């Protein structure tokens, strides 16, 4: 294997960098509502995963297939992964895929990866930027029966093996794994590169392949909300109790000194 076949799983999510004040819960539907000017994006951890695949492609060449699951996937959003250097885009797109959990999502993605057939490396973000579960990558690996290494900050490929720097609490460790394997990627790997004009124009011309559940031999009952193992009972926002006491002063420096006096007075320090 000189030119690895890589698959990167990317999820369209509400922009996690949007200010906290714009996130509202609609309690009737148990869903997050966001103002229309907050656009969806590819999950930030999925972007790091994409960058990991691109760095391997830079070095050894190879093919990157982007895989995304959802309904009404916005082409301009997901095509960013093609514009930065992805080769092919496969969308698992159908109303039946909606509102899945980690189980039904990983199940559909693993089934799609089996249908793709050829892969040396599968990349996922360490967790999604919406539900923050951190299960789908490991779930895909378990369902496919391939080894998985989590929290990668660097991935290199040679001689049918991947050499991965995995983040651990007091530093990192270098882990070797035989391919095919699945790797989940964390933020220390580095940001996804910007797309260049040539890439954006090439991406605009590419048409995604769209698979429905039946195209993968799946029943509607196995995917999305019907295939869940977990039930969302309630989505809510905690009431903030903290009331901030702003310490003032004639100048910023004086305010700083007053803060020390106030904390002493309040017996905080």
């Amino acid at each position, binding site marked *: 294997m000189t030119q690895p076949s890589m698959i990167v799983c990317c999820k369209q999510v509400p922009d996690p960098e949007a200010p906290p004040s714009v996130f509202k*819960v609609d309690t009737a539907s148990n869903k997050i509502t966001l103002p229309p000017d907050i656009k969806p994006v590819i999950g930030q951890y999925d972007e790091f995963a994409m960058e990991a695949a691109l760095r391997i492609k830079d070095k050894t060449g190879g093919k990157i297939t982007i895989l995304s699951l959802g309904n009404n996937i916005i082409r301009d959003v997901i095509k960013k992964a093609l514009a930065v250097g992805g080769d092919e885009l496969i969308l698992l797109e159908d109303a039946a895929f909606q509102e899945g959990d980690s189980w039904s999502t*990983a199940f559909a993605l693993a089934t799609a990866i089996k249908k793709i057939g050829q892969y040396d490396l599968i990349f996922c973000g360490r967790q999604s930027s919406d539900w923050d579960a951190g299960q789908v990558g490991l779930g895909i690996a378990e369902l496919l029966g391939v080894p998985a290494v989590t929290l990668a900050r660097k991935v290199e490929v040679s001689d049918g093996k991947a050499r991965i720097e995995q983040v651990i609490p007091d530093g990192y460790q270098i882990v*070797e794994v035989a391919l095919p*394997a699945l790797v989940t990627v964390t933020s*220390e790997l580095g940001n996804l590169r910007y797309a260049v004009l040539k890439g954006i124009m090439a991406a605009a011309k590419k048409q995604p392949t769209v698979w429905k559940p039946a195209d993968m031999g799946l029943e509607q009952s196995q995917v999305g909300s019907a295939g869940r193992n977990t039930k969302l*009972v309630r989505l809510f926002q905690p009431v903030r109790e903290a009331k901030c006491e*702003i310490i003032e002063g004639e100048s910023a420096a004086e305010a700083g000194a007053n803060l020390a006096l106030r904390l002493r007075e309040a017996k905080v320090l």
Partner: protein
Amino acid sequence: MTEYTGILVYGEIIEGHLSSTTTELLGRGRSLADELQEELTCAVTSDSVGQAPKEAIAFGADKVYSTEDPSLKEYEPSTHLQLAEKLVRDTCPRIILMGQTPMGRDLAPRLAFRLRTGLATDCIDLSIDPESKLLLQTKPVYGGNARAIFTLSVMPQMATVRPKAMSPMKRDDSRTGEVIAIESEIDASTIATRIVEKVKEEVAGIKLEDAPAIVSGGRGIGGPEPFTTTLKQLADVLHGAVGASRPPADNGWVPETLHIGLTGKIVAPDIYITVAISGASQHIAGCSGSKTMIAINKDPEANIFRESQFGVVGRYEEVLPAFTEKLKELLAG
């Protein structure tokens, strides 16, 4: 049909003792088990389990499954997955709890998919639904901007729990319980990964998790230097440690080991001082357990003020030295 009963805490051992997160799991596990009137068991695995089985009982377990094997010294996924899968298939617990720790976040999803069951990760609250007797699992979602409560429609019900979100029982060495030794029977042929080398990047001084006070800097700090000067000076006065939100770690201004937040360290010091941190939910997720939060930020609209008890609006370059100086004076006097 399999009868699922009892609660299993999959414990962790640090240098021959039960980890603090495990004692927290046992604390909540005990009250859940009492409510269900079922047994609380704890699995401990290591090359040498030391005092951990005794401690598990003193912290609330009725029964301990103890496995010793040289290969269990370090966490390796497939070894632990084999052990956990066998234990769960043999004992059929209704509920399995792990910490949302480096081991738990790696092992729990693997085990859940191996068992074809469901899992809620990073829970901050667990309770029993009075009607269905199912486990209600509360976890932050959307980077901490909302919370979700889940139940599972399959057995066993699995959860990982955020460190410091729950309290241990008071240690009671007079409690009695059973310790059962389990042979490891590890099939080494399933081990697919090999650790070639470990590289420590630990920073000198007080560990973040143990520090009574933390001074954290954010994107607004602007570069690496203040972390070792102005912020460090304040931390030293408080006998505390310096931390950071994600941008300084991603920009390489500080090592990743200082990153506090959803995907970094979770801390709960007495005093948490944020400097030029806007207060993204992802950061708050790592420090919301702090006793007193104090914010210094030049933007009066910054979200961090909604999370803090005390605040100063101003440029940190001016506020911080005066604050540190005054504090030094007060603490000396």
